[in-house]
Every structure is written in structure tokens, then in C-alpha cells.
């Protein structure tokens, strides 16, 4: 299985280079290749239908227990076939649809990247490899939504989708990590799913459920993160059909299905998903009803359908899962077909607004037939698969006996009515009505574009008529993997005249009613804040404002603020260390003046005087001189404290600095009078810092020192270092490496000064 994935990625890479240059060869080769992949997976149907589960393990990152573990059971096989078959159809379709795009090579490449990633998601049995593929689907979706990257709307939609789905992905990752921590399963799904009790005992279950649900919600466009999906319609239509109707958005649902055995006993799981799904379903249906743009209608109905699937997982139980599985299949078929047909219509007529379309039944009969059948399936009309699905949904809700099921049922009824109204709208206005397209010459789409939707619609019909033959065998096993029990699905087209059927009929009538009232209902005014996009923009702009504000405070350009920040933060830490450590001042200063000599007081007085002088002078020369006094006083102190070498060095260094200062001082402009307030504004900071440093150094100086090193150096100086001046011996021998670094610094300084002074300033635009 790994091999099949890798070959798809490789094909994607090659397509980027060769597809555009050799389309005549590339398309057939690619199609054959995908057929091969389909055949490869189809081969597994026989064992899987026996209830077998195939597992392949490929080690990857042993250090983290992350491997490519692939698992093929009913559920993954169903999705794998869905992905590959749709992928092939989409590829054929887009070979015509994107015929004139300059970047069709990239397009095909991204499409294959997506296909590989999506296959990876549904085949992975290791949570992290699943996550990797999961994020890759988001990323390839980003590239595909932004495919028409010269349009602002595409760029915005792409970025929005990426942020929402990746943000959800991060939550998902955390959830996965919790699951691993709870079970110690090394992220292996096969092991994890067998240990719901470990998850329950760990106390991490609630967090894991919420985090995983956020991931699934963002990916499957559930309220309140649903808005990226309608915006993603900026993508080329084949992409919408493939990613945003049939496969990628179902990844969230797939994940719920996959993890259902782990959580199916937990109330939170049911309520969270059920309520989210029900809300999304209702909202999506209502929004779909408002739209005129064919693609946006389809996008909102997709949101709504995904809501139904979430709701059914939330409802729980075998019947609900069976119904969800059938409905998922039905939805993929009709929605894929509708999208592709919408793309063809757009391609041929130049519009996809229903109000501007008409007469398509006559102009584009094949496409129109696909639309008709698929819309019927969406509306749940006999004898299509959509009808079978809807019946099962009603049935499951009606008989479930769960506390929320009647509310769900009522909402589903409403949503269903909207679906029907929308279907009527599409079929009547776009296909049948005689309108402004009547006199235009519009041709049927190319066979590559007309065939895929027609095929999907045909399957909808076929599967509706004989569900037990066409879809039940595989779906049964898929559903069984979700509730982790023996398969219990039995599909029939006709269940007889019972209450559920009556409900279906009632929905149809209600839908027709809604259609009639359509214009009036659409006029209901909608405040801006009801629009989720409004909130997205608000969050984005708030973040940017916040970023700007915080940066203007932190990075305000004033060096003295930076210095003050550093010093204040440092002072806070130091005060904390002093107080927390209970470090008071050392013993009362009675012995303060012990051994004090007049020289020391003189030095002290000199420093203090010089400092006082520094604080209030206007002339640079005097500042320099005062600074010199301080430097020489310190040199004096070194002499006093038995450090002749240091004293001489300090003396010479000070002199050198002074000479240099004086050399350049006369080039500077005179001081201008400064505002006293800015001058002394920071005085408290300076004093605080001084006080703290005084206390710290006093405390430290009062400590005793271990003198092992001192003795070693003094003793070995002559015998090993061959010198009587221990300081010099340390410098050139014991710690010569320091000195080597020191002279390197001096040399670099020299180069720096050469660079500063000799360089002809580079005035070119940086």
C-alpha cells in the first residue's frame, strides 16, 4: 500500500515536469496508471468482503514510534475506491476543463498530491502518519483553491481554508497525543481501538474528544468553522467536485467513523457531534436556499450534508451508522456529478448563476440528464440512491429512542425540505425554463467533461434501484467497522407505505412549498454579524491590530526604552531572587571600617565626586575629563589592592580611550539644551539598579571563597610556569586560550575600525 501511495506522489512530481509539455502522452499514461491503482485496490474487495483486515507495517521513525501502518478494512477500502475512482474521473474531466490553463502541469501535480494524501489518510492506522497525510490534504487543498492565484478572492479563500483546517489540525494533533498518552499504544489505531477503558481511566478522554472533534469540525466544515468551504468555491470546479464535495471534506467524517468504537459509549461524543451536526445541517440548508450561484448552492448543501453525517454519528447506534454510510455514498455521487455538471455549464455558457441560466435541457442534454438525476437524488426522490439514504436516515432517527432524536428528526425534515426546494430550483430554472439562453448557441460539453457526471448519476440511479446488489456488500462492511460489530445493513429501495415514507412525501411537499415562497423568504434581511465570514475578518483584523499595537510598544525604536526594559526585567528577577532567598543585608556593619585606610576613602570620594559631576554637565570635554578621573581612580584602586599589572593596564587603556575620545570629540556638534524631564525620567531606574547592584555585590563580597585555585596558581607558578609573576603566567600559560581570544578580539576591532573608516559608504538602495 505504501508503494501505491509513493507511486502516486511520484506521478505527481513527474506530472509537474512533463504533463504540460507532452499532454498527448501524459494523459493516457496517467489514466492507465490510475486504473492500475484502482485495480490494485479492487483486488482487495474479495478478502475484505469476507471480513478480513489487511495490515502493512513500514517502519519510519522508531524514536517516536511513528510508522507507516496501513490498514485495509471495509471502511478504508470504501474510501480508497471512492478516492481513486473519483480521482480518475476528475483527471479526465479536467484534462478538458483546464485545457487552456498555462499551469495545467502544476494542476495535475497538485491533484495527484492530494489524491495520495487523501489515500494516506484513509489507509493509515498510525495516528501520526494519518495526521501527516491529513495536513497534506489541507495543504494541497490550499494550493488548489488558490490555483487562480491572480484573483484576490482565490488567494483569500485559499489562505482562509489553510488557516482554518490547519488550526483544527493542531487541535487534532493534541487530541491524538492525548490518546497515545492515555493508552501507551504508540499511536497504533489497531491497538488503540481495543482499549476504550484505558482512555476512560486516563482522565484525558474529555479533552481528547473535544480536540479531535475540533479537528473534524474544521476539516468537514461544520458550524462555526464552516465558512471556508463556500469560499473555497474559488477553486477550479473539478477541484470543488473532488476535494470539496466527494473526498477531502469527508475526511472529518471518516475520522469520526474510525474513532467511533473508542468513544461510542461516551455521552459527550454523542452530544457534541449530534448538536454540531444538527446545527450545521440546518444552517447549511438555509444558506443554500439563499444562494443563486450554482457552486455556492452546492457548497452549502455539502455543508449541510456533512452536518447530517455528523449528526448521525452523534446519534449513534447501528441503524444510524448504516444510514450515514449509505447517505455518504449517495452524497458523494450526486454532489460530485452536480459539481462537474455545474463546471461544464459554467465552461459552456460562461455563467453559473441560476437566474442567468435556462434551457439547458435542450442545449446540453447529456449534462442536463446528469443534473436531473443527481438533483433528484439530492432531493431524495424515488428510485435514486438519495432516496434510499434519506429513508434510512428518517428510519434511524424515528426508531432510535435517543433523547435528542426527535429534535434531530424535525430539523432533518426542515433541511430536507430546503434541499428539495433547491433541487426544484436548479432543475426548473436551469434546465427546463425558457429564458435568456434560448437563442444563444450553446454546445454540449466535450465528451471528457460530459461523461463523468453522467456516469456518477447513472450509478446513483442503478444503486437506487438495486441497492442490495450494487452498494450493500461493501457498505455493509464499512459500516460494521464503524460500530465494531457484525454487519447488519440490509438495503432495499422500497420499504412499503409506512410512517417514514409518509414523512418523505411530506418533506417533498414542504420543499415544493418552500420553492413557491422562495422569493419572499430570500428577502429576509440578514445582519452582517450573522455571517461567519464577518467573524473571520474580525478575528484576523483584531489579531493584526493587536500585533501592531504590541509591537509598537515593545519595539518602539527608542534605545533607552530597550535598555530600561532589560534593566527593569533584570531588577525584578533580582529582587525576586533576593526576597525569595531571604537574603537580607549581611551582618550589621559594625566592622565596616575595619582596616579601612585613607587611600580607600580618597578613591571612593573621587569616584563619587566624579559621578556627581557626570550627572549635570553640558560640555563633552568635561564629561570626558570626569570620565578620565573615574578611570584613573579605578586604576589607583587596583594599585592599592595588590594588582600592579591590572593597574598599569587600566591606566594605559584609560589613556588610550581618552586620546581617542578627544580625537573625535571636536567633530561632534555642540550639545543642545535638553528637556530636564526626559533627562531625569529614567533616574529612578538608574538608582534602583545601582541599589540592587550594591546590595548584591555586598552580599557576595561577604562570602568566603574556596582558595584551591589560588593556591594552585601561586604554587605552580614558578615550578611549572617558570615565572614569578603569577598573573602573567596565568595569562600566557595557564589560561593562554583566553589571551588568544583576547588578541583575536583586538584584531577584529581593528578590522572593524578599518571597515568603518576606510569603507566608501554604500549608498545603493538596500
Amino acid at each position, binding site marked *: 500500500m505504501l508503494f501505491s501511495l509513493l507511486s502516486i506522489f511520484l506521478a505527481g512530481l513527474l506530472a509537474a515536469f512533463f504533463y504540460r509539455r507532452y499532454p498527448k502522452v501524459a494523459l493516457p499514461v496517467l489514466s492507465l496508471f490510475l486504473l492500475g491503482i484502482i485495480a490494485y485496490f479492487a483486488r482487495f474487495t474479495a478478502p475484505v468482503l469476507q471480513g478480513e483486515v489487511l495490515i502493512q507495517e513500514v517502519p519510519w*521513525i*522508531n524514536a*517516536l514510534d511513528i510508522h507507516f501502518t496501513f490498514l485495509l478494512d471495509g471502511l478504508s477500502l470504501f474510501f480508497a475506491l471512492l478516492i481513486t475512482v473519483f480521482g480518475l474521473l476528475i483527471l479526465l474531466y479536467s484534462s478538458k476543463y483546464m485545457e487552456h490553463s498555462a499551469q495545467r502541469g502544476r494542476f495535475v501535480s497538485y491533484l495527484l498530491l492530494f489524491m495520495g494524501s487523501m489515500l494516506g489518510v484513509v489507509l493509515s492506522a498510525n495516528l*501520526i502518519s494519518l*495526521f*501527516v497525510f491529513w*495536513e*497534506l490534504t489541507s*495543504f494541497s487543498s*490550499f494550493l488548489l483553491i488558490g490555483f487562480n*492565484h*491572480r484573483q484576490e478572492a482565490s488567494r483569500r479563500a485559499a*489562505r482562509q481554508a489553510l*488557516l482554518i483546517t*490547519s488550526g483544527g489540525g*493542531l487541535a487534532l494533533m*493534541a487530541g491524538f*497525543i492525548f490518546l497515545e*498518552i492515555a493508552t501507551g499504544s504508540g499511536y497504533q489505531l489497531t491497538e488503540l481501538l481495543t482499549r476504550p477503558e484505558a482512555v476512560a481511566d486516563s482522565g484525558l478522554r474529555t479533552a481528547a474528544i473535544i480536540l479531535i472533534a475540533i479537528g473534524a469540525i474544521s476539516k468537514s466544515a461544520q458550524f462555526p468553522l464552516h465558512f471556508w468551504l463556500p469560499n473555497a468555491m474559488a477553486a477550479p470546479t473539478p477541484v470543488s467536485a473532488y476535494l470539496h464535495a466527494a473526498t477531502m471534506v469527508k475526511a472529518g467524517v471518516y475520522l469520526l467513523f474510525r474513532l467511533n468504537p473508542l468513544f461510542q459509549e461516551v455521552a459527550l461524543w454523542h452530544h457534541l457531534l449530534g448538536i454540531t451536526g444538527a446545527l450545521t445541517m440546518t444552517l447549511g440548508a438555509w444558506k443554500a436556499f439563499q444562494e443563486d450561484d450554482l457552486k455556492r448552492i452546492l457548497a452549502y448543501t455539502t455543508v449541510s450534508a456533512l452536518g447530517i453525517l455528523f449528526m448521525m454519528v452523534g446519534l449513534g447506534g447501528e441503524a444510524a451508522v448504516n444510514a450515514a454510510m449509505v447517505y455518504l455514498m449517495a452524497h458523494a455521487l450526486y454532489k460530485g456529478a452536480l459539481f462537474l455538471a455545474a463546471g461544464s455549464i459554467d465552461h459552456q455558457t460562461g455563467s453559473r448563476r441560476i437566474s442567468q441560466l435556462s434551457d439547458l435541457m435542450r442545449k446540453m442534454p447529456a449534462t442536463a440528464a446528469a443534473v436531473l438525476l443527481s438533483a433528484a437524488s439530492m432531493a431524495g426522490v424515488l428510485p435514486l440512491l438519495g432516496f434510499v439514504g434519506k429513508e434510512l436516515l428518517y428510519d434511524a432517527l424515528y426508531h432510535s429512542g435517543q433523547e435528542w432524536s426527535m429534535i434531530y428528526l424535525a430539523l432533518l425534515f426542515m433541511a430536507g425540505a430546503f434541499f428539495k426546494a433547491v433541487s426544484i430550483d436548479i432543475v426548473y430554472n436551469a434546465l427546463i425554463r425558457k429564458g435568456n439562453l434560448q437563442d444563444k448557441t450553446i454546445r454540449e460539453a466535450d465528451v471528457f467533461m460530459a461523461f463523468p457526471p453522467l456516469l456518477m448519476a447513472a450509478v446513483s440511479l442503478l444503486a437506487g434501484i438495486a441497492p442490495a446488489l450494487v452498494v450493500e456488500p461493501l457498505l455493509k462492511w464499512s459500516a460494521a467497522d464503524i460500530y465494531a460489530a457484525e454487519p447488519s445493513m440490509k438495503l432495499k429501495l422500497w420499504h412499503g407505505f409506512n410512517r417514514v415514507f409518509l414523512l418523505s412525501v411530506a418533506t417533498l411537499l414542504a420543499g415544493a412549498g418552500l420553492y413557491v415562497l422562495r422569493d419572499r423568504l430570500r428577502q429576509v434581511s440578514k445582519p452582517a454579524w450573522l455571517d461567519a465570514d464577518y467573524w473571520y475578518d474580525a478575528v484576523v483584523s483584531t*489579531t*493584526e491590530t493587536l500585533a*501592531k499595537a*504590541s*509591537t509598537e510598544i*515593545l*519595539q518602539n525604536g527608542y*534605545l533607552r526604552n*530597550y*535598555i530600561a*526594559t532589560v*534593566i527593569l526585567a533584570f531588577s525584578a*528577577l*533580582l529582587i525576586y*531572587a533576593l526576597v*525569595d*532567598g531571604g*537574603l537580607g543585608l549581611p551582618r550589621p556593619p559594625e566592622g565596616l571600617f575595619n582596616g579601612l585606610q585613607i587611600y580607600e576613602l580618597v578613591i571612593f570620594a573621587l569616584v563619587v565626586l566624579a559621578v556627581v559631576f557626570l550627572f549635570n554637565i553640558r560640555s563633552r570635554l568635561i564629561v570626558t575629563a570626569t570620565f578620565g578621573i573615574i578611570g584613573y581612580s579605578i586604576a589607583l584602586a587596583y594599585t592599592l589592592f595588590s594588582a600592579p599589572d591590572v593597574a598599569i593596564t587600566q591606566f594605559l587603556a584609560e589613556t588610550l580611550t581618552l586620546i581617542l575620545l578627544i580625537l573625535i570629540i571636536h567633530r561632534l556638534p555642540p550639545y543642545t539644551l535638553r528637556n530636564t524631564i526626559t533627562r531625569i525620567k529614567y533616574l529612578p531606574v538608574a538608582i534602583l539598579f545601582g541599589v540592587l547592584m550594591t546590595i548584591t555585590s555586598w552580599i*557576595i563580597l561577604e*562570602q568566603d571563597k574556596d582558595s584551591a*585555585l589560588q593556591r*594552585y596558581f601561586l604554587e605552580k607558578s614558578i615550578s611549572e610556569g617558570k615565572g614569578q609573576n603569577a598573573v602573567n603566567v596565568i595569562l600566557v600559560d*595557564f*589560561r*593562554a586560550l*583566553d589571551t588568544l*581570544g*583576547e588578541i*583575536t*578580539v583586538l*584584531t*577584529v576591532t581593528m*578590522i572593524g575600525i*578599518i*571597515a568603518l573608516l576606510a*569603507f*566608501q*559608504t*554604500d*549608498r545603493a538602495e*538596500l
Partner: protein
Amino acid sequence: MSDILTPFILLPLWVLLIAFIFCILFWKYAKVQAVIALTSAAGYLLSAVWLFLAVYQDGIQVVQIGNWPAPYGITLVADLFASIMVLISAVIAFAIILYSLQDISAERKRNGFYPVLLVMVFGVCGSFLTGDVFNLYVWFEVMLVASFVLIVLGNRQGQLEGSVKYVTLSFISSGFLLTGIAILYKLTGTLNMADLSEAIAQHPDPELINLATVFFLVGFGIKAALFPFFSWLPASYPTPPISVVGLMAGLLTKVGVYALMRFFTLLFTYDLPSTHSLLLVLAGLTMFFGVLGALAQRDFKKILSFHIVSQIGYMIMGLALFTPLAIAGSIFYIVHHILVKTNLFLISGIVKVTQGHYLLSKLGGVYDRYPYLTLLFAISAFSLAGIPPLSGFWGKFILAKAGLEANRYFIVAVSLLVGLLTLFSMSKIWVSVFWSSAPGEAKGEFKYDSRTLFKSHYLLILSSVFLTLCTLVLSFYPEALIALSKRTAEQLLDPQIYIDAVLNNNNN
């Protein structure tokens, strides 16, 4: 034993210093200097590989400089962590020198660009290898003074202004370090890190050690650009040419991080709850405010500069969590970050070559015109943002796992949020520089097409490709580095190994 080992540790340092000296001796001959620089970079890389292999196979390598036994002389120590850092610095130095051959103006090359670049790497390498706190200060200064020079080299107004801030804050940081060293010496009577580790562990008054800890935390914090000490970085990094920024972005702050990791695993572990909680808070604030800064910017280089700050937070987060996995995560993150961040700067330089700007609003159209450049950027940018399976994801993943295992939920939440904001910021660059059309496109302001760009600037692209390949290896085969990081983390968390290697090495 030590006589055989000597060259292992010193070879990288020698190579760089000798190259530096010869560049000075051949001052007038920029071409000769370029040859010296490239040769020495290759030599440095080879010797770093050799050192790493030696450490990997035979354990910690130690050399007592001047044959004075520890703790009296200066000890150079190469443990796994140090040798990994030396190796990665060599990789970066090599790529940068390759890049600089075509990036740096002739005037800069004539005024000491190569020797200063080499000596900066020399300082960086020395900082990694030293086992003595005062010696560390000296290496830091070598590195810093060299970086001062690199920042001003060119004398543009921005460079001069940025360098004022950089120099001042760096000097303050060095002052704090020196004070901290003085305190440690007074309290323990030693400067050798291994010896200090033992002395601190046995010290009767940890409250006093706390004082030193504060000085080191702030001193290294400034160098590593932690919150709230990072202001110098965005002020100065965007000003010099790309080769310089790339090198600094990759290496300099990481030396601060390295020092923090060394000190807070080897020395200051006497009071984990307070010191490392403090680090954790700082880590969170650093990543958050760093990324906010990036969001506020509109200039390619400034955005990338703020991201450095933000990413430092992740590295410190691993240190602060202080579990083997977390430290391993930090190490992985450092390596990943150095590669990716340097590469992003290099790519921004190539983009600048095509259109002459760094301002996002004046850039565009790269996606259509330079597909290969786009690919290079995509790999690095989305790696930084943590899109799996690119290397940044593994770093973030390991840290998140470590954080959740340690029940530090809040910091993990912050780190994930910051990851999302990073993606936001990277996608902003992507959208405006790569996807949207360039304002000047219609006027034919592109100087090159994909082919002529490569022909005239092949070294820029090759060095970026080199780093990208490294990133890809890390992304698809992270196993090697993760396992190595884990081993390194175990070594770091058991200071006794280090202490034994240094102090018991005297006799043989």
C-alpha cells in the same frame, strides 16, 4: 590518550583562525581571501564531521589546554550537544560563504568581509566547545565583536543605526555575564563547568547561587533574544546584506540558546520548580510576542527577523519542560531552525535580486515566473510553519508531546497557537510575494527569467538548494536526528557523564 584526541577538538578552531590570519595577511587580495574562505569553510565542515563522528563513537572528547589538569586550566569539551552544534554551524558557514561569493559587493570584500565572517564562526565554534565559564565569555566576545563589524560593514544608515542598539545591548549582556561569572567564582572558587556543577550541587546556600542564576539568565537571555530582551534583534538584523543576516539568524541567537541549555542542564538544576517555571513563562511570552511582531511587519526581512524571536521560544520551551523528550525536542528544533531560517533569508535575498525590494507590497509574481525558487521557499516556509511532514512539524510535535506528557497544557496551547500564527504570517508572504501579481510586472521590471537568474546567480541558488536538501532529509528521514537528539538529551540530563569526562580525564 589526550595527545591523539587533541586535533579532534582543536582542528575546527585552528582551521578558522588560520584562515582568519591569512585573510589579514592577504588583505589587498579579495580573490585570494575568497579562496581561503571557501577552502577553510570546507575544511571546517570536514573537521566538524570528524569531531562529531569521534564523539558519536567514542563518547565525550576532552582536551585540557596547556596540559593543565581541570579545573585549573581551560578545558575544551565536545559532548554530543556541542559537536552537533559545531556540525550544524559548519553546514551553515559553508552555505553562507558559498552564497556570499556572489552576494557581497566587491567593496565589502575588500574591507574585511571574509576574515570577520570566519572569525565570527570561530567565536561561535569556541563557545560551543569550551568547558570553562570565563573562556565562554571570551568566545562570546570574539563572536560579538565580529558580528558588530559584520553589521556595520557597508556603513549604510540603517546598518549604523541598528548597530548602535545591537552593540549597546550586547555590551550590557556581556557585563551581566561577567558579573555572573564573578559571583560564581566567589561562591565556588572555580570556573570549570564540570567542577562548578559539582560545587553548585553541594553549595549550602542555593539562595546565593540564585543571584548568579539571574545574571546568567538575563545575560544569555539578551543574546538568545528572549522576551523582553529581544529588541536589539529586529532593530539590527534586517540591516546588513543577506549573507550576514543569514549567518547571524542561523547561528548567533542559537549560541545564546546553547549557553542557556548548557547552564540550565549542567549548573542551575538545584531548584527546578522555580528556575524552569520561569523559563517556561519566558518561553511562552517569547514565542507569542515574537510572532505578533512578525505579523505587524510588511518587510520580508523584518518578518523573518521577528520569527527568529518567536522560534527561540520553542527551543527554550523544551529546556524548561526538562524531560528527556523535551530536551530532545529542543535540540531537534535548533537544528531544524538553523537550516530553515538561514535558508529563508537566503531566498529572500534571491527574491530581492529579481525585483530589487524587500517590501511585500512591492513584490509579487514569483510563483509564475520562478517556479523553482517558489519550491525552495515553500519547503522552508511551510517547514517553519510546521506543515507535516516537513522538519518544523517534527520539532513542534515532539515539544507538544513532551509538554502534554508533563501536564503543561497551557504552554502547549500557546505553542500550537503560535504555530498557527506562524502559518498565518508565512502564508501572508506566500500570498503577496509569490501569488499576487507584482506591481511593476506590467512594466517589465523583472530583470531575469528563471533561466537567466540561475545563470547569473547560480551560487545563491546552489547554496539555498544545499540547505533545502538538508531540510528535506530532516523532514523525510527525521529518525536519525531524533534518535541522536534523544541520546544527546540523556547525556545532558545526566551531568555526571560530563563531569566524569572532564575531571577524571586528568591522569590519562
